[in-house]
C-alpha cells in the first residue's frame, strides 16, 4: 500500500478505535426511528414515501442537521486531539512532511463523513421498510442524491472551518465553542447583511445551495454557479491557512 494510504488508515483507526466512535452511528439510527415513530403514530393522515422519508433524514435544514453536527464533533478533535494528548510529537518525527500528515487527516475526515452518510441512508431505508412496509415507491431517487449533495456541501464548508480552528486553537473545546458562535452568528449576520449588495460574497450566504431549487435566487446576481465558485474560493483559502499554519508551527 502506498505510504499516503497508510497514513489515512492510521487516521481512520484513531477515529474508530475510540469508544465514542459508535455514538454517531447510534444517533443516526435513533433519529430515523424517532421520525418514523412520530409519523406512524401521530401523523397518520400524511402519505410518506421512501424518498420523502430519506430526504427528511438527510436534509441539512431538517434531520440532516444532526448529521452535520456529528461530523463537526468528530472533526473538532482531529488535530487538536493530538496536541492535547501530546501524540503530535511522535506523529511529526517520522519521514513524512507535515502537509502529508495533515492531508491524511483531511481525507480520513471526508471518508468518515461519506461513510456516515451512506450508513444514514441505508438505516433510513431499513427503518422505513420496518415501519411502513415496501408500500410507497413514488418519487425520484435523484431527489435523495440532491438532498445528500446539498448537505455534503454544507458539511464540508463547516468541516473545513473546524479543521482550521482545530489547528489554530490546538483545543477541541475552543474549536467547538467558536464553531457554535459562528453558527449562531450565521443566522443573525444573514439577516443584518442581506440589505447590502456585497453580502453575496459572504460565505454563509452561499452555503445553502437548496435555494436555487425553486428558481428565484436569494439576491440579485447570485446563481448556483456563483455560489459554488464563492464556496470553492473560501474553501481554498481556509484549507490553505490550515496547511500553512500547521507546516510552520513550532510544536511544543
Amino acid at each position: 500500500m502506498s505510504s499516503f494510504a497508510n497514513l489515512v488508515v492510521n487516521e481512520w483507526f484513531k477515529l474508530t478505535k475510540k469508544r465514542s466512535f459508535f455514538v454517531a452511528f447510534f444517533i443516526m439510527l435513533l433519529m430515523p426511528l424517532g421520525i418514523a415513530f412520530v409519523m406512524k403514530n401521530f401523523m397518520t393522515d400524511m402519505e410518506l414515501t421512501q424518498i420523502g422519508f430519506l430526504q427528511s433524514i438527510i436534509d441539512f435544514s431538517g434531520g440532516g442537521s444532526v448529521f452535520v453536527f456529528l461530523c463537526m464533533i468528530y472533526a473538532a478533535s482531529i488535530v487538536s486531539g493530538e496536541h492535547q494528548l501530546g501524540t503530535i510529537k511522535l506523529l511529526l518525527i517520522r519521514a513524512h512532511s507535515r502537509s502529508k500528515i495533515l492531508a491524511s487527516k483531511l481525507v480520513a475526515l471526508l471518508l468518515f463523513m461519506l461513510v456516515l452518510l451512506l450508513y444514514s441512508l441505508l438505516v433510513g431505508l431499513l427503518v422505513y421498510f420496518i415501519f411502513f412496509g415496501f408500500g410507497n415507491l413514488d418519487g425520484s431517487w435523484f431527489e435523495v442524491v440532491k438532498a445528500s449533495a446539498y448537505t455534503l456541501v454544507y458539511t464540508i464548508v463547516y468541516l473545513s472551518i473546524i479543521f482550521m480552528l482545530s489547528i489554530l486553537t490546538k483545543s477541541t473545546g475552543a474549536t467547538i465553542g467558536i464553531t457554535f458562535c459562528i453558527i449562531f452568528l450565521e443566522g443573525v449576520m444573514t439577516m443584518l447583511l442581506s440589505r447590502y449588495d456585497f453580502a453575496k460574497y459572504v460565505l454563509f450566504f452561499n452555503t445553502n445551495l437548496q435555494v436555487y431549487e425553486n428558481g428565484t435566487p436569494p439576491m440579485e446576481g447570485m446563481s448556483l454557479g456563483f455560489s459554488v465558485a464563492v464556496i470553492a474560493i473560501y474553501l481554498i483559502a481556509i484549507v490553505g491557512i490550515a496547511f500553512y499554519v500547521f507546516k510552520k508551527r513550532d510544536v511544543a
Partner: protein
Amino acid sequence: MKVHEEDVVLRLQQVTKKAGKQVIVDQLSFDVRKGEIVGLLGPNGAGKTTTIRMIVGLIGMTGGDVLIKGHSIRSSFAKAISHVGAIVENPEFYPYMTGWDNLKQYQRMTIGITEERIKQVVEIVGLSEAMGKKVRSYSLGMRQRLGIAQALLHSPSILILDEPTNGLDPSGIREMRDYLKQIAQKEEIAILVSSHLLSEMEMMCSRVVVIQQGKFVHQQLIGAQQQGQEQTAANDIRIRVRELEKAEQVVRGLDGVQLVQLDTAASELEVSCNDEALALCVEELCRQQIGVYRIVEVKRSLEDEFLAWTGGSRIV
C-alpha cells in the same frame, strides 16, 4: 580518542533558538558518534528540551543547522529524520488503543517494518505481556518502555531521549539504564540522553555535554574512556604507611611526585603523580622498608568537577 568523520551520526552546528529577545539556545555545537551514549546535561531550564525539539524538527531554529548522517533536518527533513528514533519529554500514546495498536500506527508510517521487528523491539524493552492492554492502563515506566520500542521500530542510527528517567522510581531508573546500555550494544546505535541528574549521567553515558543557559559549557569523557585518556596525566593517590615521617621524606625526595597533603590521624599521605612516577615511588618506599598498607586512587567526583565547570551552580 580517534575521531572518524564517517562515524558522526548527529552534528549540531551553531544551533540557536531565540524567542523574542530571549536566547534559549545559543550557538550550540557538538557531535554524537556511532556507539556512543552521550548525555546532554544541564539544570532545569538550560535548554535541553528545546535543543532536542530542534534536532527532531518539531521547532524551527533561529540559526545554525542539525545534520543527521549528513542530512540537514532543515532542508531534507524526511531523509534526516528517518535515521532518528526519539521520545520528546513524556512518552505519549493513544490511550484508547492497545500497546500493539499504538506500535502498528508507527509501523504503518515507515515502509518495511515487519511484525517480527515489532515483536523484537517489544521483547527488548520487556513489554511482550502488556501488548494486548490499552495504554490507558500502563504505568509511566511501561509507557517509557513503549516509547523506546516506538523509537527503535525503524532501526534508527540514533536514539534521542529527553529525560527518560523522569518520574521513574529507583528500580525503574536502574532498568532504564540497563535497557539503554543493552540497546546501544544490540542495535549498534548512538544514543543521546538529556538529564539534569549528574549522578545518572555518570552511570549511563560514555560522554557528557554540559550546557547552561543554552550555552555549551564543557564536555567530558566518563568511565573507561576517561581513564584510558589520562594514563600519562597526574592522578591523586593516597598511600597508607606504617611510618609516616619517613615516607614523607622519601616522597619529598622524588622527582615527579608531589605531596598534596599529610593525614597523620590516618597515617596517610596524598600524592599527585603519573603512573611511572608512582611506580618509582612505591619501589622506593618498599626499599626503605617503610611498610605500605594500602594504595588508593582519589577520585575527584564528577560532581566536584561539574561545580567547577558551571561556576558553582548545582546539579544533583
